[in-house]
Every structure is written in structure tokens, then in C-alpha cells.
């Protein structure tokens, strides 16, 4: 075990219910700098809800969030961005009727003298950012609506990394991508890790998780089944956690574990 460091993010006893449903129930999770923490589980397990609490889209009912050891007040997406938390949403959350540059800079527009929009500077920056992810992309004048699924996903990813994110939440970032683009996103995640950025990676693809993640946290019915270092568990162990809620020997069990094998 490494010596305990101050985690980049520490979420403690987070709960959120919608009506009578406990979407997220006493979840505790932490993230170190330069670490990829995979969040896995069935649909409705509470992964996306947990991510949206951290990104400020939902307000938690109870629990605390600390960023770099200090308690963080996150009540809306603006607060989260102030802590360097950027999110790639599963739905991409793009404004379909405006162009790529407008989406990349939405909420953080570059301004020229007298506070006017500096569209040309934004387009130039957009060309640079998109060039890293998708070198063939040229449709900067078109509204995002006109782009392909993969191109739109690239826009959402470019937006998240454009503003020096410290903490990145990626909710199914490769869902609409082809094999080549998926590989590019994999490379990007490794690059970002090397820069010390912490990443929450939500994925359905267990191979992706084992390729990219350092640790994995399995959720079921809003609770954490267990958290494990990828090196300590196998794919079958993780599948058992997802499907049965069974926490294997290599994992630290959470409140959602149904049985523990020694």
C-alpha cells in the first residue's frame, strides 16, 4: 500500500433520492491525482447520478465533497467548474443550434475589447483543440446538429479538456465512437493521467475499464458494492460484483455488498 495522500476528490456518505427512490445511497468514493477510477454497474445503478452530483448538475441530499482535502461547496455546474471539475455527459449536453466553437466556449466565451464576443479567436482555438482529437474535422461553420455522432462526441470531449481540468468525469465517452476514435480517446486518457489529472470513467465496457483504469468502483441499486485496484481483481470478479453484488477478496467492500467471500 502507498502512504495515504490527500485525495484529489473525496466524496463521503453521499445520498440523493428522487421521490422514494434512493438513486445514490451513502456512497463514499475518492480519487487520487493522475488516477483513473472506473465507475461500473448496471443501468440505474446510480453511476451517472453520482457523477452529476460531483459536476453540480444535481444537488445531493446529504454527504460531503472535499477537493484536495478542503470541503467544496458545489451547488451548480458553475461551482464545480471553479474547482476544476469538467464533465463529458452521456447525453453530450451540446447546444445543437450553434457551431463547434460556440459550444466549446459556452459559459466561458473569449471576449474582445468592450466585452464583445471574440468569435474569430474562439474559432482559432476550436480548430486547435479539435485538431488534437479529430484531425480531419473541418465543419467549424455548421451547427453541431449537422455533425456525426462521433464528431459531436469529439466536441464534448474537447470542451472538457479545453480549460485545464483537474478532475474529469467521463460518462460513457466512447459510446458513439468508432474503433479508431475510441483508441484516440484511450490515448488521451493516458496523456491526461500523466499530467496529474484525476478521471472518473463511467463505462459499460469491462475491457475498457481493465485497459484504462487504476481502480474500479462497482455500484448496484445506488450503493457501492466494493472498490478494488484493477491489479487485485479479475474481470470475472468485477462481473460478479456488478451482477450479484458479491464482493471478492481483493476488494474493499461497501454498504451495497450482499456477501463477502474470504
Amino acid at each position, binding site marked *: 500500500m502507498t502512504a495515504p495522500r490527500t485525495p484529489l476528490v473525496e466524496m463521503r456518505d453521499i445520498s440523493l433520492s428522487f421521490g422514494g427512490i434512493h438513486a445514490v445511497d451513502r456512497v463514499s468514493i475518492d480519487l487520487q491525482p493522475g488516477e483513473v477510477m472506473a465507475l461500473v454497474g448496471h443501468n440505474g445503478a446510480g453511476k451517472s447520478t453520482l457523477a452529476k452530483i460531483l459536476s453540480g448538475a444535481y444537488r445531493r441530499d446529504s454527504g460531503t465533497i472535499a477537493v484536495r482535502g478542503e470541503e467544496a461547496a458545489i451547488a451548480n455546474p458553475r461551482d464545480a467548474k471553479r474547482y476544476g471539475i469538467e464533465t463529458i455527459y452521456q447525453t453530450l449536453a451540446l447546444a445543437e443550434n450553434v457551431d463547434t466553437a460556440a459550444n466549446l466556449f*459556452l459559459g466561458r466565451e473569449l471576449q474582445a475589447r468592450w466585452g464583445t464576443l471574440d468569435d474569430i479567436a474562439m474559432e482559432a482555438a476550436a480548430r486547435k483543440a479539435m485538431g488534437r482529437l479529430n484531425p480531419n474535422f473541418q465543419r467549424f461553420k455548421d451547427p453541431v446538429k449537422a455533425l456525426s455522432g462521433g464528431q459531436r462526441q469529439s466536441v464534448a470531449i474537447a470542451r472538457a479538456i479545453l480549460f485545464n481540468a483537474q478532475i474529469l468525469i467521463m460518462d460513457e465517452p466512447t459510446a458513439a465512437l468508432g474503433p479508431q476514435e475510441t483508441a484516440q480517446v484511450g490515448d488521451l486518457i493516458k496523456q491526461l493521467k500523466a499530467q496529474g489529472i484525476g478521471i472518473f470513467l463511467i463505462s459499460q465496457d469491462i475491457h475498457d475499464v481493465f485497459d484504462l483504469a487504476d481502480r474500479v468502483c462497482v455500484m448496484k441499486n445506488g450503493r457501492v458494492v466494493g472498490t478494488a485496484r484493477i491489479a487485485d481483481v479479475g474481470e470475472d470478479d468485477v462481473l460478479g460484483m456488478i451482477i450479484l453484488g458479491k464482493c471478492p477478496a481483493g476488494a474493499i467492500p461497501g454498504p451495497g455488498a450482499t456477501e463477502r467471500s474470504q
Partner: protein
Amino acid sequence: MPPLARFLRSTELDTRMLGMVGVLLAIWIAFHVLSGGLFLTPRNLWNLSVQSSSVAIMATGMVLVIVTRNIDLSIGSMLGFNGMVMGVIQTDLLPKLLGFEHPATWMLTLAAGLVLGVVLGALQGCIIAYLGIPAFIVTLGGLLVWRGAAWWVTSGQTVAPLDDRFTLLGGGPEGSIGATWSWVFGLIACAAVILSLAHSRARRRKFDFPLRPMRAEVFLSAAGCVLILAAVAVANAYPWPIGSVRRYAEASHIAIPDGGLFIAHGIAIPVLIAIGAGVVMTFLARRTRFGRYVYAIGGNPEAAELAGVNTRWVIVKVFMLMGLLAAIAGAISIARLNAATNSEGTLAELLVIAAAVIGGTSLAGGIGSVAGAMLGAVLMQSLQSGMVLLGVDTPLQNIVVGIVLVGAVGIDTIYRRRTGSGS
């Protein structure tokens, strides 16, 4: 692609907008022929410009309201209420404080009206944005409340006549800027067109972005200047009526020569206000963060919120602007009438919404332009005054306007579907 189409594309002009201009010209020529040459005269065009201005001013704000997926049904009543308040302030309140026809009366009245407009808009905007009550309901309530309030200001009595300086806001011979200042205005507008084209070219060159061909730039500058100067020439070709000339001659002790004295109207003050509103609102919509947020909210409200935009405050600001513009339109309306009545602005909201929609604003949100809405307002007004010139009965006028509204949006829907263009 044929050379003409290629050239038009190189100018990057909006083909949809060009189509609207074409339709407007066709309507004008048709009315001109049908009325035996009465429509395309300086007098009629000048009147058309004054009559369009109040709806055009409100349409610039309605575009932003509709782009954010809202609606404002209350502006006609707000205009009426605000007009009554401004009427009472200038004929009753301020004369008691300052004396009759004090030079500051018109300014204080207008300022009070504008503040009231912003407050009314903010009130409705807050209810819509922060309490989450649909804009349709809130402004439907506003339609009833403000109309009732308009009656209440004077228990239904009409307020007239108004302050002499205030009535200049409504146009008329005195409420126009005359030939010389109209030419000055026209030349400044031409310079602004050329400078903004040159500025945008310089910016694009700095970032090595593709430029329009030079001849397209020259064509755009020339076309813009010709249009502006032609409009000024038309406004300057419309002389004062004989009565006004005689009064003016007596007041300034000039003898009227045998051929009569030609004094040009020039551009009317309400038209200048409308042009100003159009420029400011286009600037807000296209060049500021606020405008960017308005369109982003219209495209995907959730995405705008997640991107960190304070969407509720943006909505409140949109309704505040709408209230402000309704107040300006109210000032112009009562000034033109030289009276404030509690029914002023009845059904104006529908004309304004129709103008915005004919001008290409999508009720689904996210799409619409200020210039298009103003063009829509002129188009609606052209239809109406054209039919008046032809002596068409009011019921038939309404039928025609209704059919044109539905037809225009229908054609636009088909056009968008075929070209797949969103904007």
C-alpha cells in the same frame, strides 16, 4: 453552379433573408400596380416606415423571447398600461411640479416609462424563470392584468393632448429630422457598413481564415450604401403638408414663394428609434455573451445550464428587454396619436409574434434573427396599408393577414426541410 448563384454564395448572404426581401418587393410592386401607382410613392413609403416602427421595435425583443422557447402575450397590454402612465405623468404629474410644457417633461416621462417597462418585464421574467410557471400562462395573465391596470390609471378616460416635445417621438412633420440631417445619418450609416465589413475582413486575415472574394466585399458595400441612400432620398422626397409649411413660415417669418415652399420630412424620429433598436438588439444577439446564451438556451436549455450558464437570469433579462421595448413602442404609439387611451396596443402582441415568426423565428426555439423579425414587421404593415389603399374591408384584411401568416410559415418549414438548414 451558375455564375450568379456562385457569386451570391461568395457574398455569404442569407438566402432565406434575400427571399424575404424578394417577397416584400413583390408585394410592394403588386400593390403599386393594383392601386394605380399609389403604393411606391414617397408619401406612402414614409407613412409605412412610421407605422411599422412600433411593431418592429417590439419584434426585435420578441425574437429573443421566442428563441429561448418562451412567449410574451402581454406586450400589447403592457404597452397600453405604460402609455397611460406616461400620459398621466406628462399631463398631470410633471406639470404640477414643473409647470406646463417644461423642456424636461418629455425626458422625465420617457425615463419613467422605460423604468416601468423594465420593472414589469422583470416581474414577469422572475415568475417565469424562478417559479417555473410557463411563459404562456404568466404573460396571458399579464395580458389581462396590464390591460385592466391601464383602465385603472384614469378610470378609462383618454389622456390628451400630450406634451409638445413628447409628441415628436411619434413622427409627423415636426417629428422628423429634415433633409440635411437625414443625409448626414445616411452617410454615417454607409461608413458604418463599410467599416464593419473591413474590420471583419482584417480579423479573418489575422487568423488566416478564408476571406470573401474582394468583388463580393465591394458588392456588399455598394449594395448596402445604395440601399441606405435610396431610403434617405425617399424620405427626403416627401414634403411637409401645406398647413405645416404655412404655420412654420408664419412662426419663422418667411414669405412662402409662389411655387410653394418645399420642406422635406426626412427620416421620422420613430423610424430612427426603430433602426437604433434593431442595431442594438442585433449587437446584443450576435456579439455579446448574453446573446450567445439566449441562442444556446433555445438550442438546449439543459446543456446551457450544465455548461455553467445562469439560464434563469438570462431569461429574466430577456423579459426585461421585452418590457423595455414595449415601453419604447408605447411612447411612440401615444405620441403618434397625441393621446393615451386605455385600449392602445390591443392585439399588438399578436402582430409582433406574427412579425417575428414570418421573419424566420422558430417557435421551437434556438432560431431567429432580429433583422428578419423587423423585415417581418414591415411585411405585415405593407400588407395592411396596401389593403387600406385598395379599400379592402377590415374583415377581409384580417383574413388575408391570417392566411399570409400561416402560408409564410408553411413555405419556410418546407424550405428548411429541403435545405436542411437550421438558421
